[in-house]
């Protein structure tokens, strides 16, 4: 339709005539800009797959014309209709970005100097295998640490690290969702989903669903926001999009959500307005909660949160009236402080008091194939087989995760990222010599990058797999360009909600310049290092078939449709109408139904030590006295500084991943710091002024954005900017990375990174 030429990678790359190994061409070393045009495929097709522009894994469909991906939309049958967010729609802008890496690089200058030569995968794999082997021989396998964002890259990495013999595997969890993951596991024995769309009341604590977009959640919460008979109440220090769509917004002081929840619980317990039958039947420890919240009154919280006492009374009453169709949302990483564990536990328990577990419009366990087969007393959905079973070495970790001590409750494959610099620099408990990173850039996403960089600089060997020349890639000895998610076939993923479903990632286009996936990278390296005896698969196809236990029909269905469910009706164990519907379809399920017509037995065999919902957790109390039940803890985040710097997500970018992607960079290329006009006046700051933000960790330049949308004692910044890699040409030097001002201290129990921090303003 348009005569002008598209911003087409073929066109762009055809003008650059690079020779492997050469520098100074139009494209920067190792990037796609150095390739010449090649395209031989013709025809149009649509491919179902899964997104990876954030962690959500929404179902997508790509339109591919003549071998080139032209458009991404939602996969209709996946439940979100055609919807895809800005980041998801920009996947092709990353795929065809001339600044993207497509050739391995080997360091030739000093570490961190940014001098590399282009190499083949063969050369890169040879060097990695040689150096990893040498380090293993000289210092032991445990001296090599591994980190990745969770997902398949993390799964493949953990199996590889286990084969290699290192216990030191890390994920991004401790810098993000670790608190709710651990708290849910401890309290109810596993993860829970939120039935947003059917709720009549949502109390939200800064869970920024319209900016940290998860499409299905955004749809559900929007339904509540628009329903005149339902209510959305948001506590958030800044006026977010979610706050703007809420029925009520309360600008809570950062880090003090816990006080509000404790007061809410106090009111319910004081007035006996909670689901006593539910608490009696399914929980342990209510008496400890009564004791710990006896003086956490609405008046008490007013001085801490800045929210009037009568608001707590009103919210408590309103929620109780619509319970169990209510959700008190524990959020994701909701930028709190040391109180995050207690806050998240208190919120989970607030739900429990309303008896909303396994109720429509409440919260629920996802019903995967095993769960429904158990409920139906017959096989109605095929469970996935676990393909990799390579045991982890039993040696102590550098951060002591999962071992007696401060990180006892931190899951071993996730670890505590903020403990890494100290372990490396102090050589305690032992020396670290190497680091393998994939889909992970802790110099942007983890606190105190200066200290982290200092630690990295002491290492003998660093490997980084990334799509871009990230800050960590600049520190590497070998940079392996990773195929983007649009060029990768991957395993079958769980997508169960109230009924089982599976999805699969299919490659939409052939990998540009044969870039490799995590499967290929780790499988190849395992072979080269001679440590692959534990592997039972060779290719992604064999991995998939093993997962599906050879079920070819299901395999084909998944590949062709991208999403498969089994026509199983939704099930919530104690929602009578859903139990009725389930039993009607599967009469054998009647055996699991009690005299009330419910499957309550499944709530009495939870995977917790007591088999019940643990309001009080004995093992936590034993190691962290006072923390077994939610109570008043650690709510000061300013620590004597006049202002609190808090951070959050935008719908346009994902953490530290997307800032350089053309489509998204065009929409947002900076992150000025929000400051209230009253504070700006006091500090003599005008909109657009540059100042320093300073605390005990560092002093950083920041451009200020004067807005009414933030508390006068709070500063707000979107995440992921302040990039230092010069190869991220669009975003280098733009904005502030708040990580630079965050301390390496961590929240108790879960080892969570502190993301609310006190700062002062100093004139530039």
């Amino acid at each position, binding site marked *: 339709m348009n005569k002008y030429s598209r911003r087409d990678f073929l066109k762009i790359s055809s003008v650059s005539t690079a020779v492997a190994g050469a520098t100074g061409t139009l494209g920067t070393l190792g990037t796609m800009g150095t390739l010449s045009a090649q395209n031989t495929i013709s025809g149009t097709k649509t491919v179902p797959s899964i997104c990876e522009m954030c962690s959500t894994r929404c179902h997508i469909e790509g339109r591919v014309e003549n071998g080139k991906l032209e458009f991404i939309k939602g996969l209709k049958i996946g439940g979100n209709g055609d919807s895809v967010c800005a980041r998801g729609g920009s996947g092709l802008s990353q795929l065809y970005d001339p600044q993207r890496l497509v050739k391995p690089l080997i360091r030739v200058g000093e570490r961190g100097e940014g001098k590399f030569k282009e190499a083949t995968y063969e050369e890169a794999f040879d060097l990695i295998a040689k150096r990893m082997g040498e380090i293993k021989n000289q210092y032991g396998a445990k001296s090599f640490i591994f980190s990745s964002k969770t997902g398949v890259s993390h799964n493949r990495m953990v199996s590889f690290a286990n084969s290699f013999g290192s216990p030191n595997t890390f994920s991004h969890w401790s810098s993000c969702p670790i608190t709710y993951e651990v708290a849910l596991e401890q309290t109810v024995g596993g993860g829970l989903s939120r039935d947003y769309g059917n709720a009549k009341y949502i109390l939200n604590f800064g869970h920024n669903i319209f900016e940290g977009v998860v499409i299905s959640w955004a749809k559900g919460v929007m339904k509540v926001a628009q329903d005149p008979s339902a209510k959305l109440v948001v506590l958030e220090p800044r006026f977010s999009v979610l706050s703007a769509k809420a029925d009520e917004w309360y600008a809570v002081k950062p880090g003090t959500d816990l006080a509000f929840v404790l007061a809410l619980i106090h009111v319910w317990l004081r007035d006996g307005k909670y689901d006593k039958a539910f608490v009696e039947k399914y929980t342990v420890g209510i008496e400890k909660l009564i004791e710990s919240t006896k003086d956490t009154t609405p008046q008490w919280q007013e001085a801490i949160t800045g929210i009037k006492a009568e608001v707590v009374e009103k919210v408590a009453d309103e929620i109780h009236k619509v319970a169990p169709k209510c959700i008190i949302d524990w959020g994701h990483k909701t930028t709190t402080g040391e109180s995050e564990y207690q806050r998240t536990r208190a919120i989970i328990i607030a739900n429990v008091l309303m008896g909303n577990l396994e109720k429509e419009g409440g919260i629920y366990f996802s019903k995967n194939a095993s769960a429904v087969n158990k409920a139906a007393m017959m096989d109605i959905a095929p469970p996935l087989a676990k393909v990799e079973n390579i045991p982890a070495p039993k040696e102590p970790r550098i951060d002591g995760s999962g071992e007696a001590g401060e990180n006892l409750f931190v899951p071993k494959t996730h670890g505590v990222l903020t403990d890494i610099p100290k372990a490396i620099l102090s050589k305690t408990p032992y020396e670290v010599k190497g680091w393998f990173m994939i889909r992970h850039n802790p110099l942007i996403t983890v606190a105190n990058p200066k200290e982290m960089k200092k630690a990295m600089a002491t290492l003998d060997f660093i490997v980084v797999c990334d799509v871009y020349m990230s800050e960590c890639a600049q520190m590497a000895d070998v940079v392996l360009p990773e195929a983007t998610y649009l060029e990768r076939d991957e395993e079958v993923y769980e997508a169960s909600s109230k009924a089982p479903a599976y999805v699969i990632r299919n490659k939409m286009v052939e990998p540009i310049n044969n870039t490799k996936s995590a499967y290929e990278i780790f499988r190849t390296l395992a072979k080269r290092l001679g440590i692959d005896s534990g592997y039972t698969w060779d290719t992604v196809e064999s991995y998939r078939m093993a997962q599906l236990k050879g079920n070819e029909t299901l395999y084909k269905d998944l590949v062709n449709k991208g999403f498969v469910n089994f026509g199983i009706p939704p099930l919530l164990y104690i929602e009578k109408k859903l139990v009725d519907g389930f039993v009607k379809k599967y009469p054998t399920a009647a055996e699991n139904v009690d005299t009330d017509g419910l499957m309550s037995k499944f709530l009495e065999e939870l995977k917790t030590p007591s088999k019940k919902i643990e309001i009080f957790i004995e093992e936590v109390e034993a190691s962290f006295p006072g923390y077994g039940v939610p109570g008043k803890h650690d709510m000061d985040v300013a620590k004597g500084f006049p202002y609190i710097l808090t951070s959050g997500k935008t719908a346009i970018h994902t953490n530290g991943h997307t800032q350089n992607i053309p489509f998204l960079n065009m929409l947002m290329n900076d992150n000025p710091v929000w400051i209230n006009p009253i504070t700006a006046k006091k500090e003599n700051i005008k909109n657009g002024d540059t100042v320093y933000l300073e605390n005990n960790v560092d002093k950083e330049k920041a451009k200020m954005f004067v807005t009414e949308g933030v508390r*006068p004692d709070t500063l707000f910044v979107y995440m992921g900017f302040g990039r230092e890699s010069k190869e991220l040409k669009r975003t280098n030097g733009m904005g502030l990375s708040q990580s630079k001002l965050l301390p390496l201290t961590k929240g108790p129990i879960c080892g969570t990174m502190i993301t609310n921090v006190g700062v002062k303003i100093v004139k530039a």
Partner: protein
Amino acid sequence: MKKYLMIFDENLCVGCQACSVACRSENNVPDNVFRLQVRVGTRGVFPNLAMDFKWQSCVMCDDPPCVTVCPTGASYRTADGLVHIKEDLCVSCKYCMVACPYNARFMNPITKAIDKCTFCFTNRVAKGEDPACVTVCITNALVFGDVNDKKSAVYKKALDNPLVFPKAHLGTKPKLAFIPNKKGGLL
């Protein structure tokens, strides 16, 4: 006879820019120019605030000033009432850009012709699909269709809601309507 209408519900929009990205992707919009944007702004005094989500694109006037001023016939109105640009007739005089009350037109930095939203007419709507922006919207803030078709979603949406036509007083009769924001932050 078809009467196309696009409705943008400000209450449902979250300003996520999925529409803008879909437009760029579908129509190969050159870097750093936009056929459509959602502009988000906060008003009020803390903590009594509201957030506005304003749609910015061609509104497909039924009586389009850009067509009237075009000296070459490059800007034209179709039988369906849509406004398009014939690139090969465009001499980039920019009269239309000045005449447009909606600031919806820009010069394409590659073709140097004037460019704007097309409702994705030839590439999607003519094939029975929705425009790209409507297709991807994560909260269904956009509805598009033939408002003369009483079975259409757009007819129902128009019937159930108060529609505001931008700068209606100018008599341009836009085929893009807004449902104004009802919500602000409270307390």
